[in-house]
């Protein structure tokens, strides 16, 4: 279980998380814990969550995304979710999860551009 982890990479004052596997609940919980610790440790200002590899979501994963964003905001870091698949977007809408307060971007490039702004102001 400990080997089953999603890596969190640091880029300047942003954290980059790339989800390339289908999430199961335990993995999501571990990621959430790791991310909270990493934000504190690196004093990060932004979190980039790349979910382009995620093809199946359920309400738990949807809520996990919303919670992660809320948690990051408490720790003073903006969250940008990038690369959501159409099927995932439709599922989340049907589940009634519109993820308010989470920034969205089409790809990593635009996501980073979105994160640069607050980082520059704050730095």
């Amino acid at each position, binding site marked *: 279980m400990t080997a089953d982890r999603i890596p969190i990479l640091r880029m300047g004052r942003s954290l980059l998380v790339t989800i390339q596997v289908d999430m199961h609940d335990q993995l999501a919980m571990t990621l959430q814990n790791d991310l909270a610790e990493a934000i504190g440790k690196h004093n990060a200002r932004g979190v980039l969550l790349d979910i382009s590899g995620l093809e199946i979501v359920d309400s738990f994963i949807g809520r996990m995304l919303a919670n992660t964003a809320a948690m990051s905001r408490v720790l003073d870091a903006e969250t940008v979710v990038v*690369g*959501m698949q*159409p099927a995932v977007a439709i599922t*989340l809408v*049907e589940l009634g999860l519109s993820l308010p307060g989470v920034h969205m*971007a*089409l790809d990593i490039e*635009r996501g980073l551009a979105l994160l640069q702004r607050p980082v520059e102001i704050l730095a």
Partner: protein
Amino acid sequence: MTAVVPNIAQAPMAKPRSEFRRLLIERRSEVLSAWVKEQLREGRSESLPADELRAQGDEFIGLIAEPEETDSILDHGSEGWAPARAFLADLSRSRAQQGFSPSETASFVLAFKRPLFAMMRAALADDAVQLGEEIWRATELLDQLGLLTMEEYQRGREEVIRRQQEEMLELSTPVVTLWDGVLALPMIGTLDSARTQIVMETLLQRIVETGAGIAIIDITGVPTVDTMTAQHLLKTVTATRLMGAECIISGIRPQIAQTIVHLGVDLGDVTTKATLADAFRVALARSGRMVTTVPASGTQRRDS
């Protein structure tokens, strides 16, 4: 009264073959001519030539005179009636597709009554009781045939409607590129769940393919907006936002704006514009572009 009717209805059970059918086979051509004349006289079938009516009628008489009468024609399990049912089904459907009205289609069977009864009256003139009984049997059969015709006619029309719906669904979801990174989705026709689903999928797929940051949904061609439609629109907008693109709704006519307000639909922070042109201007502005007029003397081309 109620005690008499079952007796008459049950009478055919006792005799395997009714008199009117025997007469029908005997005087087939005579009845057929009168029937064709009747249909032409009523003027409802003028678009069909007499010889075609005659051929159809001849086949029909053959089919209804043949089967045993123990089964009802409306009972779909009865094998004796299967050819007659199939014949009527073909006839009704082809007429439905040719644009005949329901009464025109039903008159094929109903116009048969007068010549048939006239023939029976002539043949059974001296036995009033038998005449009454036979007329009742014939009426019962013809009424059932009439009902069957209507059922099949309805089915034929429903097929036409279903096919048109499918065709409309295929035609109605074009996603066009207005500019680099700006998509437009002109919607025409009523928005229901099935269509919205297809529209949403097409739009999101195109956003992924083109990497467009802004999508404009134009609802100029949507005749009415109710709470359901508004909810579908909001879902599409939310899904687009989740993908990381922005969505603008345009083409909201004044009546629709009133309806939306009266229904208490909250469009929230969705950008809405009256016309597609306004929405396009906003889209260009958000992507850091603008359209300017080129001085008439200049030879340079306007570029993005």
